């Protein structure tokens, strides 16, 4: 259906820790195969943070489960590669793939209360992989567990490793989750909505902690979120996903300054600001169901700048500026075009022939 999105990224460059190329994931459903991720590419380098932003169902979590080899039985990868430190994880056997997880790439899940095992102590869960895979002794494991909890700034770590997840507060639990992902010193950390379940004040603390640890260890961090507001202070690069595809990829500063896709623009507008007084604009409509994808550009039914061509043709990847991509027929215009009040028709008219 769509060609490889990311002409801008050259495959398998040496300094990328994690490089996903043209990934596609399908779910088997009673009504046939449904594509949840379609041609996603991104790269994460040491010491950098990539934010993947999208609404629920946009494929952002499914793509990271594919990287970790944790897709449910009903899903399978139909296309693409996932290179971790130069080797393709998807070409490996399930067992080899599993062995890379935790060790080189680890994951922090959204709901720590569900993601931690309720019947094992926190200390046990922090060091389970170390004991099972690296043969750490009981005493070493205990010392390491205390170190890990200290690192994520859980007070009174020595006593708390003997407690169970339900005895921790939400923020502390998420710190435990992060510590257990860091136990084996991974090169890349994927954090799937790590702060969504938390109070706003706690969110900020946990994000700051993630950023600190990432900087200190020069890890690659993939931060998955639905909230562009969270991204600004933490990320270096941003990938915006819509309906299983990356609609825009750019470094964070230029993206905020001048979004090159109407969806990104709409997302940015719906971030509440401290000074804002008026009502927040919302994006009308709902994301399309992967089973009933609209023809042409998947975003066209909700786009405020829709043109005829959007209804019939899938936009090819465009490079509106150095280091940026956008899946919009009118990427360059969107980037330079007027704000929300501009007449969409006027914007598109004289540059309509831009696309080939």
């Amino acid at each position, binding site marked *: 259906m769509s060609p490889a999105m990311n002409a801008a990224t050259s495959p398998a460059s040496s300094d990328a820790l994690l490089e996903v190329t043209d990934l596609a994931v399908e779910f088997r459903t009673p009504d046939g195969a449904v594509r949840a991720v379609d041609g996603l590419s991104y790269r994460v380098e040491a010491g950098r943070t990539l934010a993947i932003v999208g609404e629920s169902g946009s494929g952002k979590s499914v793509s990271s489960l594919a990287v*970790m*080899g*944790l897709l449910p039985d009903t899903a399978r990868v139909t296309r693409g590669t996932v290179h971790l430190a130069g080797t393709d994880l998807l070409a490996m056997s399930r067992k080899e793939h*599993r*062995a*890379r*997880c*935790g*060790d080189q790439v*680890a*994951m922090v*899940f959204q*709901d720590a209360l*569900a*993601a*931690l*095992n*309720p*019947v*094992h102590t926190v200390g046990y869960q922090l060091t*389970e*992989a170390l004991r*099972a*895979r690296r043969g750490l002794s009981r005493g070493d494991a205990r010392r390491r567990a205390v170190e890990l909890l200290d690192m994520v700034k859980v007070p009174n770590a020595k006593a708390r490793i003997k407690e*169970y997840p*339900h*005895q921790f507060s939400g923020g502390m639990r998420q710190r435990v*989750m992060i510590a*257990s*992902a860091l*136990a*084996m010193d991974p090169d890349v950390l994927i954090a799937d909505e790590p702060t969504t379940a938390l109070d706003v004040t706690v969110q900020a603390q946990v994000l700051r902690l993630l950023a600190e640890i990432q900087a200190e260890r020069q890890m690659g961090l993939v931060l998955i979120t639905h909230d562009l507001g969270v991204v600004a202070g933490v990320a270096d690069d941003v990938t915006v996903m819509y309906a299983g595809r990356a609609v825009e990829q750019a470094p964070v500063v230029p993206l905020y300054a001048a979004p090159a896709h109407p969806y990104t623009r709409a997302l940015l507008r719906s971030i509440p600001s401290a000074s804002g007084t008026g009502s927040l604009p919302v994006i009308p409509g709902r994301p399309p169901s992967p089973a009933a994808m609209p023809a042409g550009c998947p975003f066209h039914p909700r786009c405020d700048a829709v043109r005829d061509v959007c209804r019939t043709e899938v936009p090819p990847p465009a490079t509106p500026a150095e280091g940026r991509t956008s899946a919009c027929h009118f990427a360059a215009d969107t980037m330079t075009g007027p704000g929300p009040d501009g007449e969409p028709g006027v914007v598109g008219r004289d540059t309509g022939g831009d696309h080939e």
Partner: protein
Amino acid sequence: MGRYVLRRLLQALGTLLLVMFVLHLLTTVAIQLNGSPAQAFFGDRVASPAQIASVEQRFNLDDPCFDQPGNPCLGPFVERLGQYAQGDLGTNLRGREISGIVAAAAPNTMRLFSVVLVTWLALGMLLGSAAARWRGSFGDHGIRLSSVLIDAFPVFVLLVVYRYVVAVPLNRWSEQTFGENSWPPYWFKPSFDSSHPWATIIVPGILLGLAGSAAFIRLVRASQLESYQGDHVRTARSKGLAERRVVLHHVVRNSSVPVVTAVGLAFVEGLGGAVITEGIMNIYGIGGVLWQAVRDDDVGLVIAVVTLLAAVTVVVMIVVDIAYALLDPRIRYE
């Protein structure tokens, strides 16, 4: 934890007292409506009022309240509680101490239950885990189908068919094949042999265990499926743990909580099954004693054995609760 156990113990004691009171009330009503069970002592003979009176006195049935419908008979109840507290369960119709009968019968019931428990766990854990692990596969459907089939054969039917149809030919065949003094003929003996208690209890025990295993298989499968879908299993896999470890420490371990509860409930069901099994197979166990007492109209013995089994049930329930608290840390701190 200690406090929790203490609270549970006190609660259980209260329940047991209530159970005994309910049983007492029901018995009292029955006697008031039905006339004195002392007549059963004489079978079909006509007894003189003096003879009846002496039997009634022996079985504590001489209180006038038993002739007054609606009277809860609290006096005899308190008296009986006092006797039970001293370990005195009364006597059966032939004057034997019930505590002695029970003590003699208990080992065989324990033998039966150990076979039953092994069958439950072996079938339930193995088949249930396999069905959950390979959910939706051919094997899963097969296991499911067999659990429905098992349910369709009540233990009573299984045992009647076994004893009257299958056992005798099997016994004869194994005698000819393996010789008269080998083990197989004893396994298939159609009734219990007290000189070979284990050998003659194995098959009835397996049948009783089989009858109860269907619910087990389903429960183990359902609770493991729930565990497999749990986020914590995904976390364990994301740490790169071997699948074997994930299954043992995160799936089986987590689903052990409902399974232990089920063992407790199944045990209570199994008590009923044990009565049928021991009755039909002539096993001299507590259930067999009860079965025979019902046939002989030995009401005193029936009451004593049912009360005793209720007490055993209460104890099992406490053990289950404590095991539950040990297995699930979330319970302990409530």
